[in-house]
């Protein structure tokens, strides 16, 4: 070991330069592997982007567009009624996230900060709901929404997400409230604050990072949801963006420029938010998985 080291310092022995070469070679190989994976992961998206700016005749001839033709975007924007569907998705997402947070912060706080009989088994029942796959409640939910007259409404769709959404959010909020010091609440109680004030004025403002995690996870989940939104909404003008695109495939099955422009336009909102908040997205979704 020592000899190699001094060799390396004085003259470059064959052994040392072979080691040097090995290190450079492995490094290079590592970057090559990582870059190849970038290409694999990005290629479908890049291809979609390139297809969307081709004119219709050259779609099938060349990989790269010969000229940029942006006319597909306004054409598709109007023809697929994208503003309406994006708005529908936004409405359902906002309502679901808002209701989830109202319900889950309260319950998560109760589980983290109070002792009451049956707390633990109640908690297990609540988070057990997380394990239930959407398919299990799909048909009963269809019947239930029909019975209360909310089938084929955006509000009904939003309500159908609440069960799964709140279970998970309660779990995360409980973990978050547990990480906040108990003494803060006790101090406020000595000052005469009632229980709700302690929650509302002391703990809730501190819980913002936890709430942000839920906003990210739940917005993405609701915005991207497909099975419930396709099943519970039948009116074309009420479709969310996911099921609207699925419907459009039939009409545009041979018009690839239109279809890829539509997909791009549907992705713009979510990709923009992702690029702005990428750090929060990645850490939020990871935290969600690691805690769940």
């Amino acid at each position: 070991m020592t000899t190699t080291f001094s060799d390396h310092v004085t003259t470059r022995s064959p052994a040392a330069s072979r080691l040097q070469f090995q290190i450079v070679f492995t490094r290079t190989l590592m970057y090559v592997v990582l870059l190849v994976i970038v290409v694999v992961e990005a290629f479908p998206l890049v291809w979609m982007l390139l297809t969307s700016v081709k004119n219709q005749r050259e779609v099938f001839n060349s990989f790269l567009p010969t000229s940029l033709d942006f006319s597909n975007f306004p054409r598709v924007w109007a023809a697929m009624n994208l503003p309406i569907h994006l708005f529908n998705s936004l409405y359902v997402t906002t309502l679901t996230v808002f209701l989830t947070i109202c319900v889950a912060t309260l319950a998560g706080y109760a589980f983290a900060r109070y002792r009451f009989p049956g707390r633990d088994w109640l908690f297990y029942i609540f988070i057990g709901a997380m394990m239930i796959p959407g398919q299990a409640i799909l048909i009963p939910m269809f019947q239930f929404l029909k019975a209360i007259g909310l089938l084929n409404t955006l509000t009904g769709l939003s309500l159908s997400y609440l069960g799964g959404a709140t279970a998970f959010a309660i779990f995360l909020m409980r973990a978050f409230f547990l990480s906040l010091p108990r003494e803060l609440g006790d101090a406020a109680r000595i000052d005469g604050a009632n229980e709700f004030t302690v929650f509302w004025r002391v703990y809730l403002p501190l819980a913002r990072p936890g709430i942000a995690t839920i906003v990210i996870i739940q917005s993405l989940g609701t915005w991207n949801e497909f099975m419930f939104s396709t099943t519970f909404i039948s009116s074309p003008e009420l479709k969310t963006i996911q099921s609207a695109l699925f419907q459009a495939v039939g009409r545009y099955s041979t018009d690839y420029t239109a279809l890829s422009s539509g997909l791009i336009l549907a992705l713009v909102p979510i990709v923009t938010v992702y690029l702005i908040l990428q750090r929060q997205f990645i850490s939020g979704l990871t935290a969600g998985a690691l805690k769940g």
Partner: protein
Amino acid sequence: MAVQSVPRTSEFQRSLRDSLPPALFLLPAAIVLVLFMGVPMVNAIILSFQSWNGMSPPVWAGLNNYATLFKDKLFLVALGNTAYFTIITVIFQSTIPLLIASLLNSGVRGSTVFRTLYFMPVIISLAISGLLWAMIYEPNFGVLNSTLRSIGLGGLAQLWLANRATVMPSVIIVSIWQSLGFYLVIYFAALQNIPRELYEAASIDGANAWQRFMNVTVPGLRPVIVLVIVLNTINGVKVFDQIWVMTAGGPNHASDTLGTYLYSMAFGAMGSSNPQFGYATSIAIVILLLSFILSIVQIRLGRRAELEE
């Protein structure tokens, strides 16, 4: 007697007063979970013992639905495809992201940039990525076949999603492509918690990169590996969106999974003419039981392996 009952009442009152705030805090959640999860779940269990077409009143069918499952060839095909999809995705989606995460963790520059790029497909919905890949796989205009033709490998061009032999691998590749960034980021976060000294100590002992991976990384990440396997299993057992969008279970049920088969039983591919809600729900209960049982078994096995070390 009367004297004794006074303190008891006040004690009762006090405990009532103490549990009032948590009860009020929990009330909205309880209402939501009972109404939108509990009731539908109970109804699903009841419905799975009934025969119902959605029009005439449901008829009690006892265990008929469940008995039919095992005689229904198409159900068994869907069960087989679900097992196939789940096993292959569990294998690839728990190993490939781990290998790449370890590469990123070995002092590579720009690991944040790489992670951001890898994560892009994760935020795209399963439905949209299914539509996108259906375009890629399209036999005449799709980029896959046209690339194969242009590099002289036209013989390999396939009807990817319309060929019984290639349809399952094709949809599995979409799943691997889409989920890579998600599991990679989970692994990467966990890798940060393994002390660097362990790797250095292993290097000094003469361990090569692969040995360090097997003897330091894998044991250190065991709980996270189990978590990723459990998540992959649950997602595999209930897989629906991408397959429904790309093939709707076709060609001729070659890519039907439990999820797509139950959906076509209930709602049909193009608006069903003869919905079988009871039977479809019994398939949903199978999905529920499979994901429950498999994840419990995996967590148990993971714990046991940890204890044995």
